[in-house]
């Protein structure tokens, strides 16, 4: 077959794939932003901020993506875990007081890790309860899933208001992660570096579990065809519980990290983040961890670049990004299910 007989779109896709495929999109976006911004130091600062923000959104979105993909559950209550994680993280940081704000870097980090661990463990346990009590009765029924998870979200937000009140709560940032470092004329917040690295560690751990273990193999298979996994002798309901717990735990971890990033939190934190989280899940492709990472990095970078270039377009830019990607790839950039 001659080259000219292959459709242009196919040839273009093959060409893009040769150079890294859709994984190159953040690089392309960064390059366009570099040209538009013009100042290398500003561009570098925004890029690092975007990557850090992307990694925190990835933490919140990856679990939701797996829950969508594997369980076919529309969980509009996911943001409750983000908010709860933020408040629990903030509370533990406040309790630990001198550990966090004192001059000992090891204690600072231990305090932060304890706060993240507390949020994550709470997320897992609350996820188990949520799946058993709220989700289990409405499997296979999307309309009821939407109604009951929105209802549960309202209840959860009211509980948070009851416990922590309606006033914004300041989040103490560990002393070791405050301030910035200047490298080659570029100022970078230390907390953002930490957020990026933590997100990277979680991604690598998830990647290894999904691609190197039998449990991961089962989850990937379940995302594609739950019924066939059962027909091979595996209890998919047990897998559902596990994935829901993991997804909720990651959301809470992301919430705790986001709380430290924001410095001031309210009960609406989770709901505000959910718009970005849904965009990430949709453009990344349901059930795909690589897709979630890619989508989150794009959303984080886009939000930061556009907020600098055209501040009024910050949120709209991600909506436009989603629309453009869906027109190009209706199932998202890296969907788990190969059609």
């Amino acid at each position, binding site marked *: 077959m001659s080259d000219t007989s292959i459709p242009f779109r196919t040839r273009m896709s093959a060409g893009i794939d040769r150079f890294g495929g859709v994984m190159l999109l953040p690089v392309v976006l960064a390059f366009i932003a570099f040209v538009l911004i013009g100042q290398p130091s500003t561009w570098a600062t925004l890029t690092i901020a975007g990557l850090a923000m992307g990694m925190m959104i990835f933490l919140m979105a990856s679990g939701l993506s797996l829950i969508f993909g594997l369980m076919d559950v529309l969980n509009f209550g996911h943001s409750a875990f983000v908010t709860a994680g933020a408040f629990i993280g903030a509370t533990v940081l406040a309790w630990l007081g001198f550990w966090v704000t004192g001059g000992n870097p090891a204690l600072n980090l231990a305090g932060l890790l304890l706060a993240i661990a507390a949020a994550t463990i709470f997320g897992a346990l609350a996820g188990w309860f949520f799946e058993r009590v709220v989700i289990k009765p409405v499997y296979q029924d999307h309309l009821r899933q939407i109604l009951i998870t929105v209802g549960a979200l309202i209840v959860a937000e009211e509980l948070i208001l009851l416990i922590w009140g309606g006033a914004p709560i300041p989040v103490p940032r560990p002393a070791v992660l405050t301030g910035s470092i200047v490298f080659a004329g570029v100022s970078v917040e230390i907390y953002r570096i930490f957020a990026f690295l933590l997100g990277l560690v979680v991604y690598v751990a998830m990647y290894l579990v999904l691609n190197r273990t039998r449990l991961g193999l089962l989850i990937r298979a379940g995302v594609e065809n739950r019924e066939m996994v*059962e*027909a091979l002798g595996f209890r998919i309901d047990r897998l559902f519980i596990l994935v829901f717990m993991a997804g909720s735990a990651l959301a809470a971890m992301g919430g705790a990290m986001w709380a430290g990033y924001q410095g001031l939190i309210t009960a609406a934190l989770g709901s505000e983040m959910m718009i970005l989280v849904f965009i990430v899940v949709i453009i990344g492709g349901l059930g795909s961890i690589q897709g979630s990472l890619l989508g989150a990095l794009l959303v984080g970078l886009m939000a930061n670049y556009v907020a600098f270039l055209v501040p009024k377009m910050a949120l709209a830019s991600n909506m436009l990004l989603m629309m453009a990607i869906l027109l190009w790839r209706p199932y998202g950039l890296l969907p788990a299910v190969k059609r």
Partner: protein
Amino acid sequence: MSAILRLEGVHTNIAQYQVLHGVSLDVPEGGVHVILGRNGAGKTTTLRTIMGLWKARLGTIQFRGQDIAQLGTPDIARLGIAFVPENMGIFGGLTVEENMRLATHDGSFDTERLARIHAIFPAIKQFWAKPAHALSGGQKQMLAVSRAIIEKRDLILIDEPTKGLAPSIIRNMIVAFREIAEETTILLVEQNFHFAKALGQTVAVIDDGRIVHRGSMTELVEDAGLQSRFLSLSLEAH
């Protein structure tokens, strides 16, 4: 020959529609046994009901004497029943190897058995590390069957394996199924009578959710009257 599987008065509903109206069927142990019928007669529903993917509303399903009608699908599979659905149930995002590994009880392969499967279906070896979504329809069917036999099963339920396959691949399938049937029992649902008669020892004809004929395949093949009476609708298409 004793029955490995016995269905007695099985009724199955899908949503508000009753699809099976008292299916009774004995599947002898060993060999290939076929359920024939036109589209919508209840063939697939029968297999899915046996597998527990749709629950029988009434009636009993006995596997080696144990009632399995109310067991969950994973429990039925663990009794030694494998299922190859009409859409093959391949996990396209996994490699051929991962698809096969998933069907083993502990994630490891019996190398002798795997070598035998590679001999029956060379494409499985050739595309071992490739993602399954890249396989052709015939190769996917080979993978679906290979997955069902990667460990010893007592009974394999196969739903229309020839659907959409080229005649040359169907001929290979006949040879492969004969070899597989030497160690296990196959319950095959088919519309392709030529494929069915090349393999089947017994046959049951299903129509409108009821078994309307049971007997040996030889009897059906040799009796044009029986064929005309029970299969005219499905045979005309082939």
